[in-house]
């Protein structure tokens, strides 16, 4: 599992997001696991990952204030750990 958020990321292809008043539900059809994203802004960031080129660019374009970047990066790391977001170009093994 990747520990860093280097490079470009996106929502995993087996995951769907459903908007809810508190943020969104994320359901992974491959693992049948439901997760709760507890902030609408975090949901916006996740949606912007694909095509943003980098996690930082997604945070900026969603308008996340600089002082909150660390907290959002933590949340994104848990999303990466649980497979909800995936690295766009996983490095091929040597």
């Amino acid at each position, binding site marked *: 599992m990747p520990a860093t958020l280097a490079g470009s990321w996106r929502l995993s292809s087996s995951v*769907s997001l*459903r*908007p*809810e*008043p*508190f*943020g969104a*539900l994320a*359901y992974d*059809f*491959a693992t*049948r*696991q*439901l*997760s*709760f*994203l*507890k*902030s609408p802004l*975090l949901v916006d960031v996740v949606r912007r990952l694909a095509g943003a080129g980098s996690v930082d660019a997604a945070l900026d374009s969603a308008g996340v204030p600089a002082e*909150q970047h660390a*907290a*959002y990066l*933590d*949340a994104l790391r*848990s*999303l990466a750990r*649980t497979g*909800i977001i995936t690295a766009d170009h996983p490095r091929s093994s040597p």
Partner: protein
Amino acid sequence: MTLAPERPVTARPVTARPVGGKLVDQFEFGLDAPICLTWELTYACNLACVHCLSSSGRRDPDELTTDEAKALIDEFERMQIFYVNIGGGEPTVRPDFWELLDYAVEHHVGVKFSTNGFRITPERAAKLAATDYVDVQISLDGATAEVNDHVRGAGTYDAALRAMANLQAAGMKDFKLSVVCTRHNIGQLDDFKAIADTYGAQLRLTRLRPSGRGADVWDELHPLPEQQRELYDWLVANGDRVLTGDSFFHLSAYGDALPGLNLCGAGRVVCLVDPVGDVYACPFAIHDTFKAGNIRSDGGFDTVWKHSELFADLRNPQTGGACVSCSAYDSCRGGCMAAKFFTGLPLDGPDPECVKGNAETAIAGERTRPGSSQDHSHTGTVRNAPVPLTLLTRRPDSPCDESPVTTGRRIGL
């Protein structure tokens, strides 16, 4: 015919949804679509379990047609209902069951279906194992044929085990072995776990609720107070390895809260669509009092979910009534609405199985049980009908279980 007690509608203060905060507080106000949707495809069943929560047996002539069922699946897809729990009756007796299953999968609606296992042949098992979108739940209410068949009918133990063997041989992993906990099987919890492990299944324990035919046998079948304690201790010791669908939150009053939401999700995150398209607040609350509308006559499922008066009312915070002074109120919240309703207890008071004993007087006293507002039980003889000595049978269950909420990960800031 007795009249149902009124729901205490006016007792609920109308409050606004909080911003941020705990997830449970958000769920209290309801979601844009349910998380735990049960869809009973048919009232027809090849069995006649004594505790069937939907009083199933005979098909209703008004059941949704194949086209209507497909249109409903389309609606689930539009609402992004990621998966549905399909039950009945026995869903596999519907001639179009496998067709509807394929249709749901093609439309990105995952399905977990409950079955008594009779029709899970090696060929079906292989098909089921081939997709991530389908999960199967086999009902078994005794770890021995003796205990199980008394409730579910002759041969049902063997049929369930055969189905599990077929699923395992087909390579299906983590399907569910679903057990309704009764007075007669609480002593078998370790044995159920061993059976589940043998077949590579996940054990799921749920609460016996006095719904449907279950109301008639609840008094004799629900676990005794000391068995409830045994169950709680077992869940605390094994909780991370069994699913409970958040069934037992009333037991949290013994001490540490059990994992889960500890909230009655009825009409908030949970609901039921029955075979004729009626929408109820919860699979255990099949009664006119908890009917929100009908998908044919009230503008479709989405409209009923979002705009029914009943659901709007249920989405206000509960008032605790006699329970608010209880030290366990935060984790128990007065227990299960359906259990109170069908035992004739006030909805804002303690659960009939209140572990603090606060319902004992009311249960022992004069009660008017509301009875059922539908009954599709078999009227003639059923081939392998259970012999209800003192035992009851139930229909294959289809609860609001495998609460995804229980296993869900909360990712916040």
